[in-house]
């Protein structure tokens, strides 16, 4: 009776659990050890009862909890109390009998263990109960007991284990989640599986294997998440745990960042590539909460690991935040391999943006003085570059002054830039002279990175200071003339130069003229160098008869004919220099927007450099020339027209990469110069259609074509109805057909594009409407083409019903953007013109009357009931479609029940509207 009273209290709040456990323990002691204390009336009353009575009553109360639904909080509270009490009872028993013998193979029998055994024996059969809540509660209780107790009798342990193991395949996710909770603990404690110690490792690892299997395969995210946070972190489990960073479920992914990784301890134990992956996955997750958790992990935990505070408390929260520490930050960046992850699409940029955002203490503490700039490393330069980016781009300018305060003025930046460029060029030259040396090469990579980062800073500076501007300008102009300057640095140098020149047309001309001067300088090195080089290579080849370290790249040591070797070296050098010049030009052109013919510098460059390059016999030169010609065509319509056939030729004849380049050029041209070029060149459309259907052989081409066609449609570049309909239909098919199932670039691009396109304008929706049934028909045939027993089709293609539902959804006029709807709407639901769905209904009825397979008819007939019908549609269309619907009803067009109901539904709703129209 008193036992029941304790339970009654325990279900209400966990706050009193400690006290209640003590009370209950007193009762238990009274029952088991006789009237040791008769002071309390409760105890003396209880002393009339035996241990068996107490245990029976206890179990009776526990059974009470078993049928309680999951949603009731009292169930869980009581179960927690049971665990707490058992723990308390066993502890007290152990106190009474003294410390348990560590080596003892069996545990001492005490009232606590006897009760536990009885309880577990009673509950175990319930694990296989028919009622799902009984299974849920019993599993929960068992798992909870396991997690509350330190040791369990071995026989019992085996029973628990096998009982729970069956439940990891329960059909209820809630039961599986509880089973996994208990087994996770067992798996983490192989010692408990003794005494047959040779056997126990197997048992434990078998268990781990099973749990890892569940972690990967369980359909319920709750179960996977439960395992994620409860599985022991071991070398064998860790890869599988970390893999959950890409789980389909956002909350599970988030748990990797907010729970697993903080619990893991020092992140430096992870491999370099794993750190980078985790950071990239987390910071670029599709779910904002995952991104936030990953950002916090980086700027609060990982930095802390480097700053060297003692390991955090169990809660996963750092005990105390260490003060800003530049060395720690540098180490952190080194640990995420900033040299690689700090590149232009690297995740370190995002990581640091979040870092500066979330760590005002670091923001304030930074000092970028001479000493800092004199000893730049890839890590430290990245610190100042990202700090600068953050201050310039974030917070609506409120950090601008911080950057002004902390960063040196333009002249000084130019000074340091000059210095590091020199170091870089010297290193490259040394490397060319000495041949490849790994250390040296690593060094140039770092020097290159430093220069690039400084150029990134230069891109953001304010050049209103004339002295600084001139200094930077002449430095970059000279730098650009260095043939050894690497490509990325070249690109940035050109961009900064464009930035320094005025944004207007005159500035653009100035920009072109000085870049082309530099190109001429670089080009001259062929003329300058070659005669000298002739001599030099002659001598060097002479002096080094063995010839294993000939510096000329094209040199073949075996070559008997010196003049041939010479010529080859010369030709190679010419190609390299040409490539370099074309690259500078390409960088320049992507920063130019004025009319080509108005700029004599550009006309000259086109004729003297680009056109010859396109005609070159050397493929790399030709291909780079092509890109430059494409860029020029964007600046001159007639040039574009003249060369359209050429670009198409490159698509037809080229290799994959060249095909993609050609597609890019063609699409940009159409975007800039308009669709007339497309309508006057029927073969051009064929290029797109062919590319869109090239998925099987060239998935990359299909991906590029998908984005290209999307741009043309969304930008309304294609005006011709037939053309746009053909493109759109091809895209819809590509979105669903199994051939693209493995092509995530295509799938994800279309997943984004199709709804955006449809909902952008009513005209787009109507276009979709006009191709919808054709596309569906094609997809029907695609599906029919597969064998029935081909089980994979369901993995690669959604059902036709789903596709049809998508098409209805994309053409739903209520979802379409319209300026009128965007305006503050009146009270209540507003009716939207539904002509597009009415027309779809008419299309459907036409098909139903036509010659299409029965199964397809079924699918499209069902759509009639899903269309939106509204009194705001045009009267003409409403009446017309209503007439068609009536005809279908009268003519008993449909035989299947679902189709008939759909038809009746639209018949009734249209009928109402027509009646109102008649009445008006």
């Amino acid at each position, binding site marked *: 009776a008193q036992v029941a009273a304790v339970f009654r209290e325990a279900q209400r709040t966990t706050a009193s659990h400690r006290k209640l456990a003590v009370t209950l323990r007193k009762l238990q002691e009274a029952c088991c050890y006789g009237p040791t204390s008769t002071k309390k009336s409760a105890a003396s009353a209880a002393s009339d009862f035996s241990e068996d009575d107490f245990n029976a009553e206890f179990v009776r109360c526990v059974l009470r909890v078993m049928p309680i639904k999951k949603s009731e909080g009292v169930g869980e509270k009581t179960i927690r109390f049971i665990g707490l009490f058992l723990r308390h009872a066993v502890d007290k028993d152990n106190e009474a009998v003294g410390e348990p013998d560590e080596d003892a193979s069996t545990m001492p029998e005490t009232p606590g263990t006897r009760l536990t055994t009885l309880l577990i024996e009673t509950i175990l059969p*319930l694990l296989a*109960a028919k009622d799902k809540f009984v299974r849920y509660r019993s599993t929960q209780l068992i798992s909870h007991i396991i997690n509350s107790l330190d040791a369990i009798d071995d026989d019992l342990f085996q029973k628990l284990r096998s009982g729970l193991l069956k439940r990891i395949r329960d059909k209820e996710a809630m039961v599986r989640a509880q089973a996994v909770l208990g087994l996770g603990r067992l798996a983490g404690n192989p010692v408990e599986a003794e005494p047959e110690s040779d056997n126990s490792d197997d048992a434990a690892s078998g268990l781990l294997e099973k749990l890892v299997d569940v972690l990967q395969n*369980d359909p319920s995210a709750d179960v996977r998440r439960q395992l994620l946070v409860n599985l022991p972190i071991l070398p064998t489990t860790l890869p599988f745990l970390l893999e959950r960073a890409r789980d389909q479920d956002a909350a599970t992914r988030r748990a990797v960042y907010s729970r697993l990784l903080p619990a893991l301890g020092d992140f430096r134990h992870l491999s370099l590539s794993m750190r980078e992956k985790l950071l990239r996955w987390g910071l670029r997750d599709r779910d904002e909460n995952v991104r936030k958790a990953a950002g916090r992990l980086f700027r609060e935990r990982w930095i802390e690991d480097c700053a060297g505070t003692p390991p955090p408390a169990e809660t996963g929260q750092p005990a105390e935040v260490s003060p800003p520490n530049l060395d720690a930050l540098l180490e952190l960046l080194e640990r995420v391999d900033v040299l690689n992850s700090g590149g232009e699409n690297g995740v370190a940029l995002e990581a640091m943006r979040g870092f500066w955002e979330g760590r005002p203490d670091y923001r304030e503490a930074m000092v970028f003085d001479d000493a800092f700039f004199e000893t730049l490393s890839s890590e430290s330069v990245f610190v100042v570059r990202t700090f600068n980016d953050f201050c310039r781009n974030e917070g609506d300018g409120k950090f601008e002054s911080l950057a002004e305060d902390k960063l040196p003025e333009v002249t000084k930046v130019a000074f340091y830039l000059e210095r590091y460029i020199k170091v870089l060029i010297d290193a490259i030259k040394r490397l060319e002279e000495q041949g490849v040396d790994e250390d040296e090469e690593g060094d140039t990579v770092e020097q290159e990175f430093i220069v690039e980062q400084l150029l990134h800073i230069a891109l953001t500076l304010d050049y209103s200071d004339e002295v600084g501007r001139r200094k930077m300008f002449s430095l970059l102009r000279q730098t650009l003339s260095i043939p050894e300057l690497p490509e990325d640095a070249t690109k940035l140098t050109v961009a900064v130069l464009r930035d320094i020149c005025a*944004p207007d047309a005159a500035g653009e001309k100035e920009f072109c003229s000085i870049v082309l001067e530099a190109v001429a300088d670089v080009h001259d090195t062929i003329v300058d160098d070659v005669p000298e080089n002739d001599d030099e290579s002659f001598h060097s080849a002479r002096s080094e008869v063995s010839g294993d370290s000939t510096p000329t790249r094209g040199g073949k040591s075996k070559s008997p004919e010196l003049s041939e070797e010479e010529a080859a070296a010369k030709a190679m050098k010419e190609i390299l220099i040409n490539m370099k010049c074309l690259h500078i030009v390409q960088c320049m052109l992507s920063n130019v*927007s004025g009319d080509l013919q108005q700029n004599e510098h550009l006309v000259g460059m086109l004729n003297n450099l680009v056109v010859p390059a396109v005609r070159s016999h050397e493929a790399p030169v030709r291909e780079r020339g092509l890109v430059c010609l494409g860029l020029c065509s*964007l600046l001159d319509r007639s040039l574009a027209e003249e060369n359209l056939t050429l670009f198409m030729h490159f698509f037809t004849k080229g290799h994959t990469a060249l095909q993609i380049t050609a597609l890019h050029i063609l699409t940009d041209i159409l975007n*800039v*110069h308009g669709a007339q070029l497309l309508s006057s060149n029927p073969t051009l459309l064929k290029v797109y259609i062919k590319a869109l259907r090239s998925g099987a052989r060239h998935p990359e081409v299909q991906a590029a074509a998908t984005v290209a066609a999307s741009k043309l449609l969304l930008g309304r570049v294609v005006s011709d109805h037939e053309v746009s309909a053909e493109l759109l239909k091809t895209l819809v098919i590509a979105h669903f057909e199994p051939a693209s199932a493995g092509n995530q670039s295509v799938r994800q691009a279309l997943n984004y594009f199709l709804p955006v396109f449809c909902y952008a304008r009513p005209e787009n929706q109507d276009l979709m409407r006009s191709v919808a049934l054709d596309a569906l028909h094609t997809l029907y045939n695609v599906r029919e083409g597969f064998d029935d027993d081909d089980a994979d089709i369901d993995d690669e293609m959604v059902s036709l019903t789903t596709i049809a539902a998508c098409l209805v959804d994309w053409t739903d006029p209520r979802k379409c953007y319209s300026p009128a709807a965007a305006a503050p709407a009146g009270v209540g639901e507003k009716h939207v013109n539904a002509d597009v769905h009415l027309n779809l209904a008419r299309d459907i009825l036409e098909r139903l009357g036509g010659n299409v397979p029965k199964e397809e008819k079924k699918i499209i007939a069902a759509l009639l009931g899903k269309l939106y019908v509204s009194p705001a549609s045009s009267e003409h269309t409403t009446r017309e479609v209503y007439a068609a619907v009536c005809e279908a009803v009268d003519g008993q067009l449909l035989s299947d029940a679902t189709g008939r109901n759909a038809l009746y539904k639209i018949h009734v709703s249209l009928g109402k509207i027509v009646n109102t129209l008649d009445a008006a």
Partner: protein
Amino acid sequence: PTEPTRQRKEKQPFEIDFAPPLDPAVVDAIYTQASSNSAISLPKKDWKSKSRNLLPDDKHFSSKQLLSLFLKPKARMGRRRILGGSSWIGNADSQR
């Protein structure tokens, strides 16, 4: 010990009444075993997930890719058709 201590609260939140003996219906619910293990288990086909419940590689597709030129990613596609005539791509402007 089956002494009935009755304590009826204003049962607004659900509470378990531990005092009275178990209702036969409840006893039934607790002790009725499932007809077979398979009746309460996940169908075997759901034991394995082909994708291991992982997401495919994210391609991070966004409107940016649809609104910029391939060759000049920094330049936004102009509304040239509306402005007519001369080609106009805001490039120099958008850099500042």
